[in-house]
């Protein structure tokens, strides 16, 4: 049974809507700026990828806004755009429409602001819990669009979005849904959350005065990831149903692999990454030789980019150098649980348009990162079978295979 992508919606620091996002991506535009949403002068990392023009009042009522965290609002906008792109899902019974969403932190904007109120002995918003809970985005997507089927949320840190898309593939294959809204959402450009990542030395700190240069996967001098926010949603359907309703088909979601390192809570492990990529390729009924494009996890941390490079070389051997690899995070930073959903949209657009977006800020590569990362300029190349990687705290490794239809 084949599963296809019939709609995409993205809200990112480089654009809202697939057209705007993709135009910026292929032109190598950075969405990283000094933090505006709170006073970041005491943070070690003072830059982020923010959705600066985002106004929930343009598409949500005051009541919805009171009851939703920013990550849910971003998810709702991305879902609206994806459904519009897909031409709606009215052809299906509501009970057969599922939602599968990933988020690493859930409603942490609400959590942080309510905690601050509580510590000042002020009462807290009555919807603090339903706004904070990780499954609130999936629940609100269902409420807003009357989707009465399976409603799942996956929280596997930075791989959440990839796992959510993989779970959607499983649901469709198992016959538990006819169509799934699947993706990820995150909004944790927040003082406490960022301080937590700073404490782990995970965030960049050397580029506070040059934000656009800060997210530099595979480059010499990279010193950590740039916190970012956003949402990406896919409309996934069984091919048969999509064709019956005359939907346009962007790509096929062909395979999914997931492994756990079971070694360390935050340090990546090459073997787990190799196993996840290999599992996804096997799940798609392919061999590694078939893969001609990889949208890498590539967060711009010193260790992570090296380990992913080694993993790709271990799995693909000499062919690794022939694969066009790129890093969406070089432009938008790390959107945590949304990152693989947005990365998936970049992967699908590469298959759909025959253009590989660049990895920016890659003037000089780290000697230990010696593959073809599509440096600085987009490349006209038609990939056929592409891999999108996502690796998260907890030792989670998820890979997805998309192919041309």
């Amino acid at each position: 049974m084949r599963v296809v992508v019939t709609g995409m919606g993205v809200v990112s620091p480089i654009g809202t809507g697939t057209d705007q996002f993709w135009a910026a991506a292929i032109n190598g535009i950075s969405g990283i700026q000094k933090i505006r949403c709170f006073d970041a002068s005491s943070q070690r990392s003072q830059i982020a990828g923010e959705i600066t023009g985002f106004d929930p009042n343009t598409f949500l009522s005051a009541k919805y806004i009171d009851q939703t965290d920013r990550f849910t609002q971003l998810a709702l906008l991305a879902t609206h755009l994806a459904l519009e792109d897909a031409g709606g899902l009215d052809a299906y019974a509501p009970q057969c429409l599922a939602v599968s969403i990933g988020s690493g932190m859930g409603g942490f904007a609400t959590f942080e602001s309510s905690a601050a109120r509580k510590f000042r002995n002020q009462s807290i918003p009555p919807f603090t819990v339903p706004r904070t809970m990780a499954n609130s985005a999936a629940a609100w997507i269902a409420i807003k669009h009357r989707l009465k089927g399976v409603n799942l949320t996956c929280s596997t840190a930075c791989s959440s979005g990839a796992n959510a898309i993989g779970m959607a593939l499983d649901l469709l294959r198992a016959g538990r849904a006819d169509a799934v809204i699947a993706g990820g959402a995150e909004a944790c450009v927040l003082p406490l959350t960022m301080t937590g990542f700073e404490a782990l030395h995970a965030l960049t700190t050397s580029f506070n005065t040059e934000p656009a240069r800060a997210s530099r996967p595979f480059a010499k001098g990279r010193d950590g990831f740039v916190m970012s926010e956003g949402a990406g949603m896919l409309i996934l359907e069984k091919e048969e149903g999509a064709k019956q309703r005359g939907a346009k088909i962007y790509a096929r979601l062909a395979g999914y692999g997931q492994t756990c390192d079971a070694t360390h809570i935050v340090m990546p492990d090459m073997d787990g990454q190799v196993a996840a990529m290999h599992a996804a390729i096997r799940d798609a009924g392919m061999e590694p030789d078939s893969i001609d494009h990889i949208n890498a996890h590539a967060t711009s941390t010193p260790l992570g980019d090296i380990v992913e490079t080694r993993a790709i070389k271990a799995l693909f051997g000499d062919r690794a150098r022939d694969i066009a690899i790129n890093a969406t995070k070089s432009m938008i930073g790390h959107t945590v649980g949304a990152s693989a959903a947005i990365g998936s949209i970049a992967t699908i657009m590469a298959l759909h348009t025959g253009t590989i977006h660049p990895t920016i800020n890659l003037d000089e590569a780290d000697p230990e990162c010696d593959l073809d990362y599509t440096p600085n300029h987009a490349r006209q190349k038609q990939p056929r079978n592409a891999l999108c990687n996502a690796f998260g705290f907890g030792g989670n490794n998820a890979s997805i295979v998309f192919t041309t239809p």
Partner: protein
Amino acid sequence: MDTADIETKVIQFIATKVENLDASTISASSKFDELGLDSMDTIQLLFDAEDAFGINFEGEEAKGFRCVGDIVSYIEKHQMSAPLTKNEGQA
């Protein structure tokens, strides 16, 4: 503020918080459900009113609120008691 002032301000506040509700249709005797507010909407309204009026609704007492006048009475009562509490604290 006297009772009438508080009532006017509370009604204006509710009209800004509740969609499709005109201030002229709200009175002190308007029950929350008559204004289209369910129990969770009412809790949210009271939370927003705390910030707007600089007051803290005590949970147990606020549970008994049924109409706009209940909010007005509470604000009036606690507005008057505030200076007294302060004096007692200083003593």
